């Protein structure tokens, strides 16, 4: 990779680290403030809830699931009947299977798309459908993470906070203000924002006749699509489309937007548990994993080994000239590491090992830095595994932040850790075994398997990026993915909230000399090792048959 490429990566990461401090501190204040803003009070009054009431883990979960169910229903009917709404620009209502898949996909923060945006969605479906769930699904992730943090910081109580307050504050105080500002910045850089349909324009040479210019409210969609961990494109080409991502500056901003909230939330965690050392420790773990993956992906992409890249003289298939290969690789890794899943290039056409690295970033459990909220609770789960292993190795009581991590706690942690691998591997196996699953592959051989494993991983881990060659708009994939997306998102949340409830109920423990210190080089190595070990144990066989076999040929 070129010097400029490395400088670009270093620069963006430095900006990220600099910005995460004030934003993380602000988020901590937003979540702990006991004052409600006027607009928030209006929402609580309309909805009819008491913002100062607390919920135990079961009621917190019930509220989460109720909000989810209503969100899916609202999206489903919106898509089904979008032709009755204004600014539909002639797009018919979606078929029920695609509508269901898309409703589940955006509510679960996955935003896997079995359709091409510009030829399917009316503007109201984007603004009031996808847009709302981009905000809301990200906020739900933050809510569940907050509940877990309260479980860690409170003791002798059942109370984990109030889902509705966490939800509304996440949106009103954090996501909406950043989106509004970032939207204007992107607009100034060239992202369009209008309510037009498709306009015909003459072309300069005229040989191919007229050209269609597709309008839409893209600038209001783009920042929340990236920040939320949502990632679904307004256009089929997502952030490769010049109207979504017009130049190198917007590309840098979009990379930052994907990483921003998940990374700042680690700082928030430090503030909430009263130990900034903790947040720096976790950020170090995340940084090691992310930079390691970025190095691997960049070297694989820069080496352009493989038949077609050698013939071309570079990994340029499916990339845009203005971003180049480095800008595409970093975007890809940020999109898979952050659970966002946006794309500014074709990941399917990445070099075999480069594409494999993107898959590995998701298989790591979406913790580097992971989704909005979900990244932090995924990370804490890995930390608990590390604490437990570490405690057993040195014969000390496994403790984290003065909470004892005993058998009861580990039961939830291990259940959490098993959901994704089980679901991904079983779903991939079913898809490969059935003719309906194999029919969707766009490439043959090992690369076809990569497409299927990537899809199973992406939908289970709420990522939503794809090896785009897979044709997913079939009954098998539409409905099968609903299962992987729902189970992959909410079953882990159940375990997280149950664990939070159990931790909150513990009496305060005393820090003794027998406590394993959850910071320092040893701990960072232990936690990083635990994350890598879990991912490798689960997924190495699948990776060997897909991208590794493809790349080693």
């Amino acid at each position, binding site marked *: 990779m070129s010097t400029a490429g490395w400088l670009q990566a270093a620069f963006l990461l430095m900006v990220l680290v600099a910005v995460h401090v004030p934003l993380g501190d602000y988020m901590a204040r937003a979540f702990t403030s006991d004052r409600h803003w006027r607009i928030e009070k209006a929402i609580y009054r309309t909805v009819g809830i008491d913002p100062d009431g607390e919920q135990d883990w079961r009621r917190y979960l019930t509220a989460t699931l109720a909000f989810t169910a209503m969100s899916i229903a609202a999206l489903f009917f919106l898509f089904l009947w979008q032709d009755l709404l204004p600014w539909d620009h002639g797009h018919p209502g979606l078929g029920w299977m695609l509508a269901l898949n898309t409703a589940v996909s955006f509510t679960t923060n996955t935003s896997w798309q079995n359709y091409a945006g510009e030829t399917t969605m009316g503007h109201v479906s984007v603004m009031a459908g996808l847009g709302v769930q981009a905000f809301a699904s990200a906020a739900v992730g933050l809510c569940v993470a907050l509940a877990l943090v309260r479980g860690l910081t409170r003791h002798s109580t059942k109370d984990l906070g109030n889902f509705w307050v966490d939800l509304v504050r996440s949106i009103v105080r954090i996501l909406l203000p950043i989106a509004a500002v970032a939207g204007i910045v992107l607009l100034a850089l060239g992202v369009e924002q209008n309510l037009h349909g498709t306009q015909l324009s003459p072309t300069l040479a005229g040989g191919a006749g007229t*050209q269609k210019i*597709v309008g839409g409210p893209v600038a209001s969609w783009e920042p929340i699509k990236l920040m939320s961990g949502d990632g679904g494109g307004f256009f089929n080409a997502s952030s490769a489309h010049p109207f979504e991502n017009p130049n190198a500056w917007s590309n840098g901003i979009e990379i930052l937007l994907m990483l921003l909230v998940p990374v700042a939330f680690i700082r928030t965690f430090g503030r909430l548990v009263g130990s900034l050392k903790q947040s720096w420790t976790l950020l170090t773990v995340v940084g090691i994993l992310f930079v390691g993956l970025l190095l691997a992906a960049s070297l694989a992409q820069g080496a352009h080994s493989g038949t077609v890249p*050698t013939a071309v003289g570079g990994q340029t298939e499916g990339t845009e000239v*203005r971003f*180049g290969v480095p800008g595409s690789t970093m975007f890809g890794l940020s999109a898979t590491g952050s659970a966002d899943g946006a794309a500014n290039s074709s990941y399917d056409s990445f070099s075999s090992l480069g594409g494999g690295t993107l898959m590995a970033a998701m298989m790591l459990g979406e913790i580097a830095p992971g989704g909005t909220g979900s990244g932090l609770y995924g990370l804490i789960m890995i930390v608990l595994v590390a604490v437990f292993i570490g405690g057993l190795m040195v014969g000390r009581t496994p403790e984290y932040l003065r909470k004892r991590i005993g058998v009861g706690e580990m039961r939830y942690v291990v259940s959490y850790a098993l959901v994704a691998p089980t679901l991904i591997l079983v779903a991939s196996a079913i898809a490969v075994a059935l003719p309906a699953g194999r029919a969707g592959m766009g490439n043959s051989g090992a690369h076809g398997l990569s497409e299927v494993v990537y899809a199973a991983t992406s939908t289970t881990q709420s990522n939503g990026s794809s090896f785009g060659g897979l044709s997913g708009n079939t009954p098998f994939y539409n409905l099968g993915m609903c299962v992987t997306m729902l189970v992959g998102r909410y079953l882990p949340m159940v375990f997280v909230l149950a664990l939070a409830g159990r931790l909150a109920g513990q009496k305060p423990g005393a820090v003794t000399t027998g406590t394993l210190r959850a910071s320092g080089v040893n701990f960072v190595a232990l936690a990083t090792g635990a994350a890598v070990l879990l991912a490798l144990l689960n997924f190495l066989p699948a990776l060997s048959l897909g991208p590794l076999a493809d790349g080693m040929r």
Partner: protein
Amino acid sequence: MRTFRTYFAALKMVIALTLLVGVVYPLATVAVAHVPFLHHQAEGSRIAAGSSLIGQSFTDSQGNAVPQYFQSRPDGEDPTATGASNLGPENVVDTLPTPGDPGKTSLLTNVCTRSVKVGTLEHVSGARPFCTPDGVGAVLGVYYSGGNVGTVTRVVSLNQACPAAPFVATYQGAKVECAKPGEDYSAAVVTPIRGDAPAHPVVPADAVTGSGSGLDPDISPDYARLQAPRVAAARQVPVAEVLKLVHKHTSGRGLGFLGEPAVNVLQLNVDLDRTYPVKAN
């Protein structure tokens, strides 16, 4: 009862949030987009001939390159169906056309075909590694006596339909056959042949690969420099004058390291038409 109340509250919350972030926020952004500094971008950066952000093809009605225009990357032309080829790095074997089946070319063959086409247009060599001189992927299907071990028993040039002459006559002592469309060669070991083309071909990488959007508005400065002599000749101006305009429409890296240098093809061509209009014969 309490659960029912929770679900009812959830429904009202979805509606309230829809109003706030699904209606007020995007429409407010649409309203802000009408201020003068933002309006041009908000409308899609439109110019008389399309949008400066959206790539277009500069071909005549037969699809041939118009010589006085710089050519875009090899993409489709329909902005309502954006996207990439999504073909992988080892996608190297074509499905040859048979009566009733148009077939499907592999990514490798697409690259090779484009390279030969660009080479012909610009009067330079279109040779690339793993490509045949006639512009398809140089890929052999090799049959061994023991599956994928043993001696070579039969060799087929998989992407060269009969009666084409295979790009090599023999492979490890066995005669190379041309491929019969429709025949199943899946038992053969797919073996791409590197050939002796230079590792850095004359035709640049972006000229032979599709973009991520299918609408890339830019080409690399290398590809622009390759095209400059042809454009200059068609407009009867010195190449240096054309290169000056190329330079003018090249956006460098932001801060010196963000992104890659890129030449906006449409704006360059519009500027050429204005500065050096084609003289009518």
